[in-house]
């Protein structure tokens, strides 16, 4: 496949890995932010390829994993209501809420649909005017423009039966939280390429300056990631801390202006709770008052559910890089993709699920 196979080329990948091994004088601790990047690292065994030259810590960039329990419970409650069609991205369906997941609500008669694009949900609302269609809009900066477009489209069409249950999170505040933690060990970050395609990487300059930490915007194919790791290792070895862009074929400094404008029109920055992390200031997006009619949180009466969380799950330590998913006593036994204890085991983008899916044999060795 053109424009993909080149970035999966084994010879180039091995060359980059060899250079990283050569340049690295100690095991630098690097974090890839995005779950898609974690997925690639595990799928291609890049951690194996790099040996002890770097330690890869898997970041919180899996939207499925960090959507708060309350939000999931609200989605479940909405899906169970007669007259409501809940529309979602596929991998949200298996995420455990406090009592069930969307698959179970569906099995009990809830109308739950999976789409690839939020504008499909708008079309659905248009085609069934007697039902209230709610799109479960989760994601990072990457999905926000499409969600904004869906609302703008619904407004233009004059739809009264379309709304979104929004749970958007933003990456830079999460990095800030990680770097501000007294136990942080991460020495360099691979910034998420698709997020930066939308928002650019101006904001990451502040983080680089403030915390003196190198950040490289990276893509999602194995060669992208190896190149980003090499760029980070070179910076660290030279004592530099700069923002660099590896993913030049997609990311521009300013990002995608029209996308940003659509987001700014519909959403405003707000505090947001992350599952497994807690509240992070100004780390999310909320629908502006002007578009309140499209905000499911405001158009439906949804009671706040406060849920308890289990102590056995060590996702916190995994995020910190102190432990690998396989260090967890529940890993692969009491916690599996079929019966997840924690959200990182749900989506293949979650660090625990990526380990479970691809790396169990390496652990056994």
């Amino acid at each position: 496949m053109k424009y993909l196979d080149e970035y999966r080329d084994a010879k180039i990948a091995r060359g980059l890995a060899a250079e990283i091994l050569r340049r690295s004088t100690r095991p630098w601790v690097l974090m890839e932010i995005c779950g898609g990047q974690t997925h690639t690292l595990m799928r291609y065994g890049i951690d194996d390829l790099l040996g002890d030259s770097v330690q890869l810590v898997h970041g919180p960039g899996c939207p499925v994993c960090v959507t708060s329990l309350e939000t999931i419970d609200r989605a479940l409650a909405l899906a169970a209501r007669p007259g409501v069609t809940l529309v979602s991205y596929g991998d949200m369906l298996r995420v455990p809420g406090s009592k069930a997941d969307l698959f179970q609500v569906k099995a009990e008669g809830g109308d739950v649909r999976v789409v690839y694009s939020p504008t499909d949900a708008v079309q659905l609302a248009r085609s069934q005017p007697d039902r209230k269609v709610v799109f479960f809009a989760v994601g990072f900066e990457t999905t926000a423009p499409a969600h904004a477009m869906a609302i703008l489209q619904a407004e233009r069409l004059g739809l009264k039966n379309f709304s979104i249950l929004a749970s958007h999170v933003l990456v830079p505040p999460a990095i800030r939280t990680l770097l501000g933690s007294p136990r942080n060990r991460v020495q360099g970050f691979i910034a998420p390429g698709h997020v930066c395609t939308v928002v650019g990487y101006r904001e990451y300059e502040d983080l680089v300056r403030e915390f003196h930490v190198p950040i490289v915007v990276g893509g999602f194919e194995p060669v992208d990631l190896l190149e980003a790791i090499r760029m980070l290792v070179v910076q660290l070895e030279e004592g530099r801390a700069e923002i660099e862009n590896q993913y030049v074929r997609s990311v521009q400094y300013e990002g995608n202006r029209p996308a940003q404008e659509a987001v700014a029109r519909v959403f405003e920055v707000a505090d947001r709770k992350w599952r497994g992390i807690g509240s992070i200031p100004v780390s999310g997006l909320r629908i502006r008052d002007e578009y309140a009619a499209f905000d499911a949180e405001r158009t439906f009466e949804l009671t706040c559910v406060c849920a308890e969380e289990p102590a056995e799950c060590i996702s916190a330590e995994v995020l910190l890089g102190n432990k690998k998913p396989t260090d967890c006593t529940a890993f692969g036994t009491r916690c599996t993709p079929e019966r997840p204890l924690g959200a990182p085991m749900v989506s293949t983008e979650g660090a625990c699920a990526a380990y479970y899916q691809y790396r169990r044999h390496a652990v056994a060795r």
Partner: protein
Amino acid sequence: MPPTTNTAATRLPAEPVSDEPKDIAAFSCPLPLPARDRILLGHGSGGKLSAELLKDVFLPALGNPVLNRLEDQAIVSLNGTRLAITTDSFVVKPLFFRGGDIGSLAVHGTINDLAMGGAEPLWLSAAFILEEGLPTETLKRVVASMHEAAVKAGVPIVTGDTKVVEKGSADGLFINTTGIGRVRDGVALSASQAQPGDAILVSGFIGDHGIAILAEREGLQFETQVHSDSAALHTLAAALLDATQEVRCLRDPTRGGLSSTLNEIATSSGVGMELNETAIPVREEVRGACEMLGLDPMYVANEGKLVAVVASSAAEKALAALKNHPQGRDAVIVGKVTGEHPRMVVMRTPFGTTRIVDMLAGDQLPRIC
């Protein structure tokens, strides 16, 4: 296991947002899922949930030595003749798709389950569950397609049944077919017979059927449209069995795709498998569609491919036999059976690293991004 409470975590919902540095070690995780007390769609996906259903519901109630083999077909003996019996229900949506329809699929699927047992298919039954309001023309088209498929395969449909349910109780049209065949003399295939050193062969490109269905269902337009590979495989299987006696196991990787089939064989035989990623045959357009949709072709359904586990000494002969048959032109050896990592299927990547190819928990879910 009852959820235990993490004190730090229970505070979180009420915790005010602050700019104070957070101790990441206080981060927490969500609750476990309760036990499943209802059937989910994933129970029909051919993955782990389906296996659970067998283990927890069907085998405890219905288990017997023939059923307990859990092959794609039952093998029973009658006056010294070994018969293969199999049954399969077809609920595909849409009813018509590129490369086939529910009717031809119902004929092919059951013939293939017989063929994978080393049997020559002899007779089929067909049972229809029709939804009130189904256009008669639709039924006619489906039945004509069944007829055509059965004639082409040389396997007559000798009995049948029709039921009609109220509108809303079925999705247009469901078909069940049952097949009876005669097992070839001297052939005893089983998923439990794979041995370390054996070669693993696939008869052609994987993922075509699943992607054709998905493209139809989602209204996806690709530059090159993918056609379902739906086909009867009994002559291909016969060609292979004619060529060598060293075939241990045949399977058609339908629901759950190649990975589920290989995992089943590995588990059943208590062996490991190592696949070579560059050898897995996937059409460019299927690969492209999978990239776009966030799917892995290893988990996408096939309806006209077979997997053969063959003793290594006979691997080349088996490959040649498949390649000589029009349905096996693109056959390849994709890997080997190993004594290492029992019950695990491992893929060797082009980078020289390895990863697990697991069985899916339920249906494959498209990812957000």
